[in-house]
């Protein structure tokens, strides 16, 4: 029943959007409420989404999708997250978020009504494209042909709170670029050529970027504690694909800043707006088509891949075609000096685009080679590390002082203070690393990270009178975001360069020592949980003869899907994580792997600061 409701409301929503499109172009008499129609279609799409969720929550196995991906003894949260834990459901989530953005845009105030209508029409066209994709290739409302009492269960590795909210947050980022795309195209087509849309786009681009940051970080955090590889980023194609719109989105956020300096690089902004959404769809295509060999599993169905490729070409082609045909003129010449804010922003944009291209190249290179030479290759993480990081480094150096550079002149206030600060930090880091372990990347990363933090703090104190108010927070927001980046860089550098790895073949009751930490490997227990069996090894951690923690690491066995998942045990400290993985056993002898990951928590802290400052930025006028 709920499947029927869901399917009908989705079809109705698509139908309404068709009507909107038709009436916009062919009906002269537009005496209907445009906004209301858009909202109606959004509500219908959401009804469709929630009826699928309802099927999941009530374990309605007459729905084929529910039957394939759910099981009645799952905890409620995973029944809910099961809605988007599969291809069909996740596409329905995609279109639901698309229509939420349409809805939100329809209730925002826009002075130019024609422009608003045009934007909504473009958004509705996107809704139609993805709606048809769902109806024809990935319908989540198919009826199960046989009557069953039990479902097949959700992939246990997805049964995790972090991953339950990861897709909606990530999609809120990806799909947010749809509204920016619509705004950019409407801005190009609109005859009344003013720049109002740039101010609107600025807000939406910040919202999308913030969600995308959160989504990527959640996925990364999940990989860190759930996959048991001891790392948090693997340069897997799926990760690269999310990073590309993230970086171009960041470039967009920064170039939209130039509106404030009244230096509008309109062409460039429009180009980026189209590119962001194109990369989002391109990512979806690569992931869903199964063209890329990735450790992430997604439906590898050729027809779906082709359909998404078609959508990608329609949207990207249309976007860039409009862009070429109606290229706007830059309204004002840009004021580019040797060291002013504009040149800093321009260089930062150039760097970000080069970075995106480098990642794109590494990601699709295997496909190109396979098509040309029939050789199958894979590009490993080291490629990305040794290309992407050096390319971004000048950008990091620049971002430390960029917010305090002037729009008009060549002068940097307190330049001496900054130079002095930089020198002190460099010397301290060099001396420190000389006496510990010297590593070029480690030194560079540390200097840059610490420098960004320090320079941002110097800028805050030297350019503003500090008051404790929200307004103040809004004012210093760019610096706060950059401090977040600096903290994350320190975390990333330390956790990857100074990571230590220890292997043990030990029996229950054995003790061992890592530096000043004493660890006892206590007994291994098995327990029965709601829908899995848990095997846990207990580790007692002692420091200076005092018991500081009891960490449990092990594996879960899910009988429904006959799968085992590793559950890493992590002992969090401020400056390092001790990360336990339990391996195999033979005759009571267990293999234990321990990673010491210094400063990992700084990464999450840094990202959290970026996300918060993203939201603060949205509230700024």
């Amino acid at each position, binding site marked *: 029943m709920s499947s029927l409701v869901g399917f009908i409301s989705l079809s109705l929503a698509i139908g309404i959007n068709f009507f909107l499109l038709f009436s916009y172009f062919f009906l002269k008499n537009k005496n209907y409420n445009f906004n209301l129609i858009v909202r109606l279609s959004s509500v219908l799409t959401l009804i469709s989404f929630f009826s699928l969720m309802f099927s999941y929550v009530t374990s309605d196995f007459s729905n084929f999708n529910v039957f394939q991906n759910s099981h009645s003894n799952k905890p409620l949260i995973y029944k809910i997250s099961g809605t988007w834990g599969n291809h069909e459901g996740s596409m329905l989530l995609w279109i639901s978020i698309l229509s939420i953005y349409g809805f939100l845009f329809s209730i925002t105030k826009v002075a130019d009504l024609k422009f608003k209508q045009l934007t909504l029409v473009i958004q509705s066209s996107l809704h139609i494209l993805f709606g048809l994709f769902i109806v024809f290739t990935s319908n989540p409302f198919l009826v199960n042909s046989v009557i069953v009492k039990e479902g097949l269960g959700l*992939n246990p*590795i997805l049964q995790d709170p972090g991953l339950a909210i990861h897709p909606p947050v990530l999609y809120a980022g990806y799909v947010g670029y749809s509204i920016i795309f619509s705004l950019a195209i409407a801005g190009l087509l609109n005859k009344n050529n003013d720049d109002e849309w740039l101010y609107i786009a600025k807000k939406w681009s910040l919202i999308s970027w913030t969600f995308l940051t959160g989504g990527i970080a959640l996925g990364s955090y999940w990989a860190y504690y759930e996959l*048991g590889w001891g790392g948090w980023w693997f340069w897997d194609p799926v990760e690269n694909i999310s990073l590309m719109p993230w970086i171009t989105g960041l470039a967009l956020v920064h170039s939209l800043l130039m509106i404030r300096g009244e230096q509008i690089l309109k062409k460039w902004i429009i180009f980026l707006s189209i590119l962001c959404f194109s990369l989002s769809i391109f990512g979806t295509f690569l992931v869903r088509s*199964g*063209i890329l*060999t990735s*450790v*992430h*599993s997604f439906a*590898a169905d050729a027809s779906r891949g082709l359909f998404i490729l078609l959508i990608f070409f329609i949207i990207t082609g249309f976007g860039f075609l409009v862009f070429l045909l109606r290229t706007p003129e830059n309204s004002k*010449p840009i004021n*580019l*000096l*040797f060291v002013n804010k504009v*040149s800093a922003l*321009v*260089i930062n944009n*150039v*760097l970000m685009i*080069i970075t995106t*291209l*480098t990642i794109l*190249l590494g990601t699709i*290179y295997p496909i190109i080679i*396979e098509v040309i030479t029939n*050789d*199958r*290759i*894979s*590009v*490993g*993480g*080291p*490629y990305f590390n*040794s*290309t992407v990081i*050096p*390319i971004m480094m*000048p950008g990091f150096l620049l971002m430390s002082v960029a917010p305090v550079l002037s729009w008009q002149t060549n002068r940097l206030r307190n330049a001496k203070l900054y130079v002095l600060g930089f020198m002190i930090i460099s010397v301290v880091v060099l001396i420190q690393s000389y006496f510990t372990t010297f590593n070029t990347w480690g030194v560079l990363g540390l200097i840059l990270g610490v420098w960004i933090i320090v320079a941002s703090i110097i800028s805050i104190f030297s350019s503003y009178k500090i008051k404790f108010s929200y307004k103040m927070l809004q004012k210093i927001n760019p610096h706060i975001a950059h401090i977040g980046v600096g903290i994350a860089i320190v975390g990333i550098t330390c956790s990857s360069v100074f990571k230590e790895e220890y*292997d043990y*073949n030990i029996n229950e009751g054995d003790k061992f020592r890592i530096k000043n930490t004493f660890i006892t490997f206590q007994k291994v227990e098995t327990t029965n949980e709601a829908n899995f069996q848990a095997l846990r090894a207990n580790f007692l951690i002692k420091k200076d003869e005092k018991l500081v923690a009891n960490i449990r690491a092990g*594996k879960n066995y899910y009988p429904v*899907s006959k*799968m*085992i*998942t*590793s559950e890493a045990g992590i002992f969090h400290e401020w400056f390092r994580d001790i990360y336990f*993985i339990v*391996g*195999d*056993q*033979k005759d009571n*002898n*267990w*293999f234990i*792997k321990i990673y010491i990951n210094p400063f990992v928590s700084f990464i999450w802290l840094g990202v959290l600061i970026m996300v918060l400052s993203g939201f603060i930025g949205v509230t700024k006028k």
Partner: protein
Amino acid sequence: MSLRYQRLLLILITLILILIAVMLILFNAKENISYFYTPSEINSSNITINKKIRIGGFVKKNSFNKISSSEFNFKITDNEKSISVIYSGILPDLFREEQGTVIEGYFDDKKIFNATTVFAKHDENYMPSSVKSKLEDSGYWNKKY
């Protein structure tokens, strides 16, 4: 500075940055690309000892052997040829006999493959498309893998 001069400067900086990027890509691409083979594609002519490659296939039935709690040997096969593999470390959760897997490592000599990484998939239904098409070609593709 005149507008023209500034634009020139911008273009110059961009070009230098792109040049650096291209150099980095060229220098790094070669070392970090590993070729991917199926067991039957491996023969004495294309084995280079100590060169990093990847092999994809599935774990041969009854070939898995635990030497200790952290050392294993098994055979990886595409039902035409199989290759002996030794690995030490933690095997991924989804590693099982008759399941698809991709291993990365190198040949010590002409016979035994020394795996440094064993990849497993997030999903048990998953198999890399390249392995899948190879297996389909040789007629051994089974939906269950």
